[in-house]
């Protein structure tokens, strides 16, 4: 199986090319078969590769497969290869990408059935899978960077999929540009790594980095830069505002790219480079702070949003914040565990939201929904499962992964735990708010919409059901020790984090404390769920229309997303645009250009002056000639 690693990304690429070439001429079923088929093949290949790694781990090996594909470019002493590395970490990512990716492709067949850009959509989606696979398979930072930028491009293409809408096109541009800010950090980090370790290969960099002392300044710079990259890709403060706007894309795209896979690339990258981060405690501290702040702020904003996708978008930002908190407090396994479970339940929630939007004839405002329970039973049940999972109510998967992060956070600092717990309460509240507003109460949409309400076709519900099952059961792969679980994931991933584990003290928390923490978060989530039930079902409150004056200050702050977009606009966009105009009008036109033209004008005007001598009077010319001759003669006389 391991010989076929290179085929893994190649197959979606071929799918992209095939669909891209035939998208005009071929019927939709053919495109669907190619689009889903390539991902299915990739998934099966991934399963085979995973089994290989798994067997190797069972046999006590590290389960690392390295494969060099070809030499990309060589300059001086630096040699850059396109080469792949499969280890426990990337093998699980492969499964998420191709597995969830396949489900979302399948779902899209139904969701996009009536869209004119059907072929274009599937070609982009396949291209995305290609780049995402490159990202996780890369055996060095440069190959990872190919995927890193490539998924950014696909994200751009898919956010701006309905390009005729200027706002969507703008959102796409915003996503790309904000990602690029992070990418610059990645690029500079690569230069530092290259200069200090002489290579970008993970297998050469990490052992060398492991030799350095705790708090090494080079590592500090590298990790800070890598973290900047991660904040861009994984939508953390201060670069998170693109993700909510990215909801302009088709909903399955939000599920795949902006929930399950691409946005977790930052976590993947940090987890991969764990040794460098572990050795820079300052960065770790910063990551934890940014993570928890993002988790809280995004959760705070999500509470008042009325667009079903916006709620989920902010929820994604918030959950990503948890993952970063996990990374920051050294819970690499926990963070990755959350990546895994989040991929299941957030993809499920997005697809469920897509199913709702589909049924509602493209209505996204929850104020116009309500009572959909009886029209969309499968969607309702699966979304309920997803909501319970994300809210952190046991025994669903989200509980275990979030609990692991919070437990580690508690050890690092009870403050982190407290803030994380607060965020978790918000999460439970806004998710149940979403659920109740959408599925409970009475229908608030138009008659026309009500007429069209229908459960989604089977290719859309199957992915929902599969993801729901995974959301329920996903937790079992890493049950905490306190519950006599196997911590299977932690064992499986241990070679990846071996260096870190050798440096830091093993995580320790007494079982009784852990029980209390678990109990508190589970109880808190349930209480918030009930609170939301009371508010939105019993009292059947509906969020007020936009511009209503009876909102409290805090509500407004949350509703307007803390005015962060406006602040960025004032701080960066407008000054830069102003600077552009200033440079063009003053420096360029009035400064440089005028100076250059001025030199030209100087010659023109001096010509104008001197030509006055040329009066045309022949007598004067003769006189001047004689004077000149005499002058020369005198000069000759005196110098001889």
């Amino acid at each position, binding site marked *: 199986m391991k010989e076929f690693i290179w085929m893994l990304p190649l197959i979606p690429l071929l799918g992209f090319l095939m669909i891209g070439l035939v998208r005009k001429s071929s019927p939709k079923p053919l495109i669907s078969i190619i689009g889903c088929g390539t991902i299915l093949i990739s998934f099966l290949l991934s399963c085979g590769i995973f089994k290989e790694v798994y067997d190797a781990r069972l046999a006590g090996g590290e389960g690392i497969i390295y494969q060099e594909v070809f030499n990309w470019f060589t300059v001086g002493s630096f040699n850059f290869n396109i080469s792949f590395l499969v280890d426990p970490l990337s093998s699980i990512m492969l499964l998420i990408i191709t597995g969830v990716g396949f489900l979302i492709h399948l779902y899209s067949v139904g969701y996009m059935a009536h869209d004119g850009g059907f072929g274009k959509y599937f070609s982009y989606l396949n291209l995305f899978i290609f780049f995402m696979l490159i990202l996780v398979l890369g055996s060095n930072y440069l190959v990872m960077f190919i995927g890193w930028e490539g998924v950014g491009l696909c994200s751009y293409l898919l956010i701006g999929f309905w390009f005729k809408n200027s706002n969507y096109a703008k959102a796409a541009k915003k996503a790309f540009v904000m990602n690029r800010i992070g990418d610059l950090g990645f690029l500079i980090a690569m230069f530092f790594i290259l200069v200090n370790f002489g290579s970008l290969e993970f297998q050469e960099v990490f052992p060398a980095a492991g030799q350095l002392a705790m708090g090494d300044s080079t590592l500090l710079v590298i990790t800070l830069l890598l973290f900047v990259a991660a904040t861009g890709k994984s939508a953390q403060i201060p670069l998170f505002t693109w993700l909510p706007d990215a909801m302009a894309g088709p909903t399955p795209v939000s599920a795949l790219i902006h929930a399950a896979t691409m946005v977790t690339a930052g976590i993947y990258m940090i987890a991969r480079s764990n040794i460098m981060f572990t050795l820079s405690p300052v960065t770790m501290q910063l990551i934890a702070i940014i993570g928890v702040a993002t988790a809280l702020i995004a959760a705070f904003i999500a509470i008042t949003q009325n667009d079903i996708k916006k709620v989920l978008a902010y929820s994604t930002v918030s959950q990503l914040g948890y993952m970063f908190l996990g990374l920051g407090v050294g819970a690499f396994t926990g963070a990755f565990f959350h990546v895994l479970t989040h991929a299941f339940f957030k993809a499920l929630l997005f697809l469920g939201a897509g199913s709702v939007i589909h049924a509602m004839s493209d209505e996204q405002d929850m104020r116009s929904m309500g009572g959909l329970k009886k029209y969309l039973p499968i969607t309702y049940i699966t979304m309920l499962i997803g909501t319970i999972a994300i809210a952190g109510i046991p025994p669903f998967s989200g509980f275990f992964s979030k609990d692991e992060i919070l437990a580690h956070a508690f050890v690092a600092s009870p403050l982190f735990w407290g803030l994380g717990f607060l965020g978790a309460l918000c999460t439970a509240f806004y998710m149940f708010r979403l659920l109740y507003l959408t599925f409970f109460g009475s229908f608030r949409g138009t008659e026309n919409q009500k007429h069209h309400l229908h459960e989604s076709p089977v290719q859309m519900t199957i992915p929902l059901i599969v993801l729901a099952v995974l959301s329920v059961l996903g937790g079992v792969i890493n049950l905490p020790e306190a519950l006599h679980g196997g911590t299977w994931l932690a064992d499986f991933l241990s070679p990846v984090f071996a260096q870190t584990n050798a440096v830091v003290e093993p995580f320790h928390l007494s079982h009784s404390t852990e029980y209390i923490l678990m109990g508190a978060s589970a109880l808190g989530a349930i209480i918030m769920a009930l609170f939301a039930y009371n508010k939105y079902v019993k009292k059947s409150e509906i969020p007020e229309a936009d511009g209503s004056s009876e909102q409290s200050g805090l509500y407004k702050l949350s509703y307007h997303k803390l005015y962060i977009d406006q602040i960025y606009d004032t701080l960066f966009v407008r000054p830069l645009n102003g600077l552009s105009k200033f440079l063009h009008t003053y420096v360029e036109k009035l400064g440089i250009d005028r100076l250059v033209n001025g030199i030209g004008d100087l010659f023109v005007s001096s010509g104008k002056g001197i030509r*006055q001598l040329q*009066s*045309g*009077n*022949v*007598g004067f010319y*003769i006189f001047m000639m*004689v004077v000149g001759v005499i002058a020369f003669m005198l000069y000759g006389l005196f110098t001889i």
Partner: protein
Amino acid sequence: MGNLLENMQGIPLNHYLIFCSIIFVIGVIGVLIRRNVIIIMMSIELMLNSVNLLLAAFSAYLGDPSGQVFVFFIMALAAAEVAVGLAIIIMVYRNTKSVDIESLNKLRW
């Protein structure tokens, strides 16, 4: 020939120099102050001839015939100059009905 040489050397060289300088200066002044183009041409002739005379005188005193060769060159050149110059003057006269140098101020910026 010998006779001519003796005759020329009979007059001191200084006299030639002074005489030629006077004629040359007359020519220069004529060029500068007269406004009639024909007079100016004549003054130029005067200058050329004064130089010719001087060349011949030096040639005689030095016993070097190349000075006389120059005289012939200058005479040929003067003839050509007069031919072209008079032609120009006639054309100017036909166009402006005047040979006044002041009227020839069209060639300017």
